[in-house]
């Protein structure tokens, strides 16, 4: 069932992309949504470096995967997994070959250099042909006059299409839109109810059982001394009977 797993992986990747578009878009792009956001300013270089260094490392790892994989090879075999990736450095141009040469190969370096070359070429060509002029003007927005920042898409609205598609399946999400009567000035209401199937299905019953058991055992704490002695007595007698019967 490798294909099914592959499809799920792709679905995961696509959803991750959607989630990061939403995250980056809401956080960094568009017009400031609150007075504090308007007053936001850049952080000090040190924390920016904290962000930048790992990002650059990721890029390098993407472009030169072979050396890293060679490093990880022995670790994988040490873990006892019998097959680690074949030696990478062999097929020139530092290309990555997860499987024997014909089956699949991907070369980070070549593609990245292609990207940079083509990008530079287009930029120069476009600037030479079309000039580098730039003019700033008010937002067009299909002619809608000066839209307020609140018309921007919020996090909930960004996820609304995906929630409608995936919601009922994964999260038992229900959306209810209550539109007021035609003449009624009251605003429409959108209620979204997300039910986490895993939480409801597995964890809540488990916790229920544990607490029920705890409640049933709880009275033992409040017994009289006499009843505790009965417990001691019963343990003693049962053990005696056990040893007597044991013979």
């Amino acid at each position, binding site marked *: 069932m490798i294909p099914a797993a592959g499809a799920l992986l792709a679905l995961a990747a696509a959803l991750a992309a959607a989630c990061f578009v939403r995250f980056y878009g809401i956080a960094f792009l568009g017009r400031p949504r609150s007075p504090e956001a308007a007053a936001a300013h850049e952080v000090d270089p040190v924390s920016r470096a904290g962000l930048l260094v790992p990002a650059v490392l990721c890029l390098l790892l993407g472009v030169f995967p072979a050396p890293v994989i060679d490093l990880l090879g022995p670790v994988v075999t040490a873990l006892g997994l019998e097959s680690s990736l074949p030696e990478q450095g062999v097929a020139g141009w530092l290309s990555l070959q997860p499987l024997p040469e014909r089956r699949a*190969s991907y070369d980070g370096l070549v593609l990245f250099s292609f990207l940079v070359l083509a990008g530079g070429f287009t930029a120069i060509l476009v600037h030479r*042909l079309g000039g580098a002029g730039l003019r700033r003007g008010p937002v067009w927005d299909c002619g809608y006059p000066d839209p307020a920042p609140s018309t921007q898409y919020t996090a909930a609205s960004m996820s609304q299409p995906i929630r409608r598609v995936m919601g009922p399946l994964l999260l038992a999400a229900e959306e209810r839109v209550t539109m007021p009567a035609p003449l009624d000035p009251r605003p429409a209401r959108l209620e979204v109810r997300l039910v986490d199937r895993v939480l409801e299905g597995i964890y809540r019953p488990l916790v229920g059982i544990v607490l029920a058991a705890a409640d049933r055992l709880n009275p033992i704490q409040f017994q009289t001394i006499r009843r505790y002695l009965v417990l001691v007595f019963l343990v003693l007698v049962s053990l005696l009977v056990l040893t007597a019967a044991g013979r």
Partner: protein
Amino acid sequence: MRLLVDLLAQGVKMFLVLLAAPLLTGWTRKVRARLLRRQGPDLLQPYRDLWRLLRKEPVLAENASWLFRTAPYLVFTTIWIAAALVPTYATGLLFGWATDLIALVAFLGFARFALALAGMDIGTAFGGIGSSRETMIASLAEPAMLLVVFTVALLAGSTQLSAIAEFLLHEPVGLRVSLALALLALLMVAIAENARIPVDNPTTHLELTMVHEAMVLEYSGRHLALIEAASALKLTAYLSLVACIFFPFGMIPSGSSAFLYPLGILAWIAKMAMLGAALAGFEKAIAKMRVFRVPEFLGGALVLSFLGTLLLFVSRVL
């Protein structure tokens, strides 16, 4: 000398794709118009549009950030490389092994990611509409696309495009149901990805229905030119992908002499024209769907591709 020829062949392929893309869009518009019994725009009209846009000065919104300005270049370059790496008229070109199908899908995914971000940058409602719907469509299209890739890769034994093409060219594959299903799924995904009629109308500016257009609403001047070129290239990439995998006739096997290349190019152009016409015909035959019926459409693609893989998987096992 051999290396030089190969390099030349690769370079020709890249620029051929670039030049052919606007022609393809022009051709599809021409066929669509013809089907509606009207004259339709000149074949070269897309070139003139691109040229005009290229020389116009772009007008940016006040709060447009650096991302808005760099996105067009990013999108255009990634799609151009993706299109360039799909084998068009010859298999086994110099940089053929540099990428395989999964990397290609990832490249297209990256372009979509950058465009969606750019769409949100201006902070208007339409940008949000475009990006959110685009991510929804992507989240369904990508798995379907990958399943198609798996079907083909399982059959051909490799995920490298040129290897697949060679395999399908020479091996007696015979009539396989899973290939037909994969073709259908790939077509549906191509339609969704390129924002063609049933999923999204490329020419419309009706706010509530547009997906791709909503993201690029704020672009103008040379940025818009790049975006338009990119979408044209994307269409070419998808169609040449379909052609390369499912109709590999007339592709020049690697290593043959340089004179055969023009023959290969001609075959490729014919295939492109045929597919373009088919696309135009299909677009005319069907009305645009409501946005929230698109998931069913793409769900159908997903099911088809999954069935394709399953059947193939089963048949290989038995």
